[in-house]
C-alpha cells in the first residue's frame, strides 16, 4: 500500500471519522474574507476544506487559487474540478499546476450546467465527464497524459503528480441504481473517497450505504446547512437529489429568526451524529455560515 498523499487520506485510512468543510471563492478579487472565515472556524475543526469550482456555474474566482491560499494558511484543501469549463488539455494542465502548488486532494465533478448559472450563453464543454477526469488523473499519476504520439504510444510526463482522488454521489435520488453504477465506474476509474450530495434522511442514507457495501472506498456524508425553511423548500423543489423531510422544515420554520443558526447547527449536528455509524466521515457545506461548524461538531459529538 502506497503512503497517503495528504492528511485527509491519512485520517480516512486511519479509520477516523473525518469531517471536511467547504468554502466558495468570491465573485471578484476580494478573497480575504472567505479565507479569514476558514481560518477562524474551519482550521482545526475539520481535516480538509473543499474549494468549489465555479459553483452552480456562477462565474467567480477559481478553485485552484483558493486551495493555494488555504495551503498558505495551513489548511488542507480539496481541489474541486468540474468538467464543464475546460477541455482535456486544460484539465490535465491544471492538475499538474495544482500538484506543483502542493494541492493533493482532488474532487472530480461533472459540474452544474451553464444553463443554471449566470452565463447561460456560455459554451458547455464537457469534453470528458467525471469518470473521464478520474481516468485522466489516474493516468497522470502513472506518468502519462490522455494523448499519444504518432505511433500511438502514450505521452510521458516529465515529473509525475500524485493525488487523493474523490468523487460525488447522490444517495437520495428516486432511482438510485444508475447513481450506484456510476459510482462503481468512478471507483474503477480511480476514485478513492466519496463526498455525497446533501442527505437529510438517515434512513434513506442507511439503505444507500447497504446498497454500496461492495464499494470499498470511504464515504463522507454530505450535510448542507439549512439557513431557513424557505431554503429547504426551495431545495426540495429545485435541487436534484435533495429531499428535506417536513419535520426538519417545520423545525426551521418554528425557530425565531435570531435562533435560526442555532437550530440549523442542531439539525446538522444531529444528522451527523445519527449517520456517523453508517459512514466514514461528514462533509459540511455551510454556504458561508462557517461559524456554525463548531456548534455542529458539538451536536454531532465529534471532538476536533
Amino acid at each position: 500500500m502506497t503512503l497517503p498523499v495528504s492528511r485527509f487520506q491519512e485520517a480516512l485510512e486511519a479509520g477516523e471519522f473525518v469531517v471536511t468543510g467547504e468554502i466558495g471563492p468570491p465573485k471578484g478579487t476580494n478573497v480575504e474574507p472567505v479565507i479569514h472565515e476558514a481560518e477562524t472556524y474551519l482550521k482545526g475543526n475539520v481535516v480538509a476544506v473543499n474549494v468549489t469550482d465555479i459553483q452552480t456555474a456562477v462565474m467567480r474566482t477559481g478553485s485552484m487559487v483558493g486551495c493555494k491560499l488555504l495551503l498558505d494558511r495551513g489548511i488542507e484543501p480539496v481541489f474541486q474540478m468540474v468538467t464543464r469549463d475546460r477541455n482535456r488539455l486544460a484539465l490535465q494542465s491544471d492538475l499538474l499546476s495544482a500538484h506543483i502548488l502542493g494541492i493533493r486532494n482532488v474532487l472530480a465533478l461533472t459540474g452544474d450546467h451553464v444553463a443554471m448559472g449566470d452565463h447561460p450563453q456560455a459554451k458547455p464543454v464537457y469534453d470528458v465527464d467525471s469518470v473521464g477526469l478520474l481516468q485522466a488523473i489516474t493516468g497522470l499519476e502513472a506518468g502519462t497524459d490522455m494523448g499519444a504520439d504518432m505511433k500511438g504510444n502514450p505521452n510521458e510526463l516529465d515529473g509525475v503528480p500524485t493525488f487523493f482522488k474523490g468523487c460525488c454521489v447522490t444517495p437520495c435520488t428516486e432511482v438510485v441504481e444508475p447513481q450506484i453504477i456510476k459510482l462503481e465506474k468512478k471507483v474503477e476509474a480511480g476514485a478513492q473517497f466519496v463526498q455525497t450530495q446533501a442527505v437529510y434522511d438517515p434512513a434513506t442514507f442507511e439503505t444507500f450505504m447497504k446498497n454500496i457495501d461492495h464499494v470499498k472506498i470511504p464515504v463522507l456524508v454530505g450535510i448542507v446547512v439549512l439557513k431557513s425553511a424557505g431554503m429547504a423548500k426551495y431545495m426540495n423543489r429545485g435541487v436534484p437529489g435533495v429531499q428535506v423531510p417536513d419535520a426538519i422544515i417545520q423545525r426551521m420554520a418554528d425557530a425565531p429568526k435570531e435562533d435560526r443558526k442555532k437550530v440549523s447547527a442542531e439539525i446538522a449536528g444531529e444528522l451527523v451524529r445519527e449517520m456517523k455509524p453508517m459512514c466514514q466521515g461528514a462533509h459540511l457545506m455551510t454556504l458561508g455560515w462557517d461559524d456554525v461548524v463548531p456548534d455542529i461538531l458539538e451536536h454531532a459529538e465529534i471532538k476536533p
Partner: protein
Amino acid sequence: MIVAERKPFDEILEMLAPQKRVLVLACGGCVTVCLTGGEKQADELASQLRLAARQKGMDLTIESDSITRQCDREFIENLKADPGQYDAVLSMACGVGVGFMSELYPETPFLPTLNTTFYGANTAPGAWAEYCRGCGDCVLAWTGGICPVARCSKSLINGTCGGTNDGKCEVDQEMDCAWLLIYKRLKELGRLDEYRKIRPPRDHRTDRGRGVRRLVHEEMVELEEEESQA
C-alpha cells in the same frame, strides 16, 4: 431530418436593408417538412416583407419561388426565377442550403431566414425534438438507441450526473434525463452491462475536431473526373 426555425422578422429585415429587389426562395426539403421554410412559409414571409416595406416606405420588390432542395446543384434548373436577377436572395433553407446556393451564385448574396437548430424527429403533430448531434461516432448501439450526445444536456457518456431530478434534467423540468431513459431502456433490454462499462472520453476528431467534414463515395465520383485524375 434537419430542423430549423424562422429568424425574428426584424433580423431578416435588417440584413435585407440595402437591397431593392429580393427573391424569397423556399426549400422543398427538410424545412418544408418541419413547416418552417416551405413554399407556404416563403409566401408568408414575402407578404410580411411587402407589408413592412410599405409600412416603412422602403423601396423593396419581393418575389418568391421554391426549389426541391437547395443542397443539390441539379434542382436549380427548376427555378422559375433567376437568382442572379435579384439584389439578394432570402433563402428559406437550412444553413446547408444557404451556404451551397451562395457557392452556386457567387455574385448574389444568399441570406439566411432561418436558424438551423437540430437534427430531429417529429414527436407529435407540429412538434420536433433533437435526436442526433451528428457527432460522427455513433454510440446508440450501447445506449439502448437513446443518444446521450444529443439528448443529455451535458453529452455525458458514462451515466447520469447529479442533475437528474425526478427523471428530468436540471436544465429544464420539461426535458427528460437522457441517462435515466438509457438506464431504464437498457434494464428493460437486460443490457445493464452496457451501462456498467466505462466509456473512455469521446474522440472529438469525428466531431468538428478536424474542421469541415466530408463524405466521398468513390464509386459515384464522376467518370470524367476520375479520368482527368488518372
